[in-house]
């Protein structure tokens, strides 16, 4: 997932933790023109995990500008194609520049609704995931500055999760963390969901050591992992906190859980 995120920091006086602050290697010392910067970083973090028959998306509800808290409740999770009859089974989470996130959400939502009205059936997550990639790539040279994660259930009823970079590269995964605290949460998820660096004790020496087999986790365990991930990220990252919103997608619908986080 090499992306423009690593191509240099935002030309801004703000911290911008979600994006790499390393300056581009080819930066010259020539005269620089001050120009309007159309982007900002509104902080926060999101994550998604799938199980055998569910997908969970989560995000904190804090919105920041620099060191200021804009609001303690600005959801980053959106039901896509929801027209009031709670038939929607797709959730989009966006983190990064909130105005772009909203614009992206509105476009995808309109497209998924139009699909349903024109074809008389809801869009599959697989199709929605491809469409989202296309929307992002259409703005390749003026990108939506967001890390998107799309969750739902696939045609077999299994949990489906797709993660994106700002210009539309995407991939189906078991779990993914994005946003300001992604670098804190992702290794935890690697270890606790995909059992990375976990081995069966005394199963051999050196390369003979057997890795612990991956299993699909029950829903209650995943909810516990998500809460732990966010309480820990809140401790260590200033842009994460205030509240945790979780949307759990199952065949019966989308369940919402809100848990308070530390507000400091």
């Amino acid at each position, binding site marked *: 997932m090499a992306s423009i995120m690593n191509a240099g920091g935002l030309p801004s006086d703000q911290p911008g933790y979600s994006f790499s602050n390393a300056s581009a290697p080819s930066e010259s010392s020539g005269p620089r023109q*001050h*120009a*309007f910067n*159309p*982007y*900002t970083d*509104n902080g926060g973090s999101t994550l998604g995990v799938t199980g055998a028959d569910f997908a969970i998306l989560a995000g904190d509800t804090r*919105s920041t*500008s620099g060191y*200021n808290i*804009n*609001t*303690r*409740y*600005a959801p980053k999770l959106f039901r896509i194609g929801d027209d009031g009859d709670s038939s929607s089974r797709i959730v989009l989470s966006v983190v990064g*520049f*909130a*105005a772009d996130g*909203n*614009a992206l959400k509105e476009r995808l939502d309109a497209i998924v609704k139009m699909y349903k009205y024109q074809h008389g059936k809801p869009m599959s997550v697989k199709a929605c995931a491809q469409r989202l990639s296309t929307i992002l790539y259409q703005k390749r040279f*003026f990108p939506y500055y967001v890390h998107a994660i799309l969750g739902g259930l696939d045609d077999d009823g299994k949990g489906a999760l797709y993660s994106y970079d700002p210009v539309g590269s995407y991939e189906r995964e078991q779990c993914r963390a994005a946003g300001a605290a992604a670098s804190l949460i992702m290794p935890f998820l690697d270890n606790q969901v995909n059992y990375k660096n976990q081995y069966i004790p005394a199963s051999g020496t050196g390369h003979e050591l057997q890795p612990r087999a991956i299993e699909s986790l029950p829903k209650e365990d995943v909810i516990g992992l998500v809460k732990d991930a966010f309480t820990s990220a809140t401790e260590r990252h200033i842009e994460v906190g205030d509240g945790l919103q979780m949307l759990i997608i199952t065949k019966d619908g989308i369940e919402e859980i809100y848990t308070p986080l530390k507000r400091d």
Partner: protein
Amino acid sequence: MNHYPQAWGRPRDDVYGPYDNSYFQASAPQTHTQSPAVTGTSVLGVKFKDGVVIAADNLASYGSLARFTDVKRLRTFPPNTVIGFGGDVSDMQYLDRLLQSLDIRENYLSSYGHVLNAKNLHTYLSKVLYKRRSDFNPLWNMLLVAGLDDDDKPFLASADLLGTTFSSPTLATGFGAHLAQPLLRKLMPHDEDSVKDVTKEMAVEAIKACMKVLFYRDARSLDKYSIAVVTKDGVELKEDQKLEDQSWAFADQIRGYGTQVN
């Protein structure tokens, strides 16, 4: 008069000599705002159980110069929405004209009994701002929109030059985000759940206290301000308020700079 529209309304060539058409052609490149010129400072807003209180001072600064001292930065939109503008004053005036034409169009075209509420206007304004930032031609403002939503509940939300939007029981733009917001948040220990416990008097008092703190510490502020209370019954707008009970007793204790050097 001839059939060339370019010549209509211009001095006759045979009387006044050839007209300088360089004035008529857009020879200069299209320019965009790169920084604001005449600016307004903070806008404050607080929800209470029946509505919203919003305030902004009456100063428009030109850099550090206090250029215009009687500029009303709260604009009302009928029936009961108030928009507070921070940032560039000319862009505020443009948005005000835009809202006036929107109001006229709505009154002519929309069905009877339908009105645009604060939530609708906030959505509209944030889309205007986001479109302009996407064109790299921003409207250099931070707005607070105060009023009521679809269910006649108090509504308070912000929109800025990038199109970023958020809503909170207390909001403050500019310098107020640093100085006033922490004070205002004391009113709302449980965020949205606290709104029902806040009366109009409490909200107005808190806003007035914050305007005073801002006048003490924000060098681009003024002690004349506008304050509006929005409820279901309409807008109560006062545009020539003066800060009361100012205390400058601390000032003669300050040593080391200014007129008292030691």
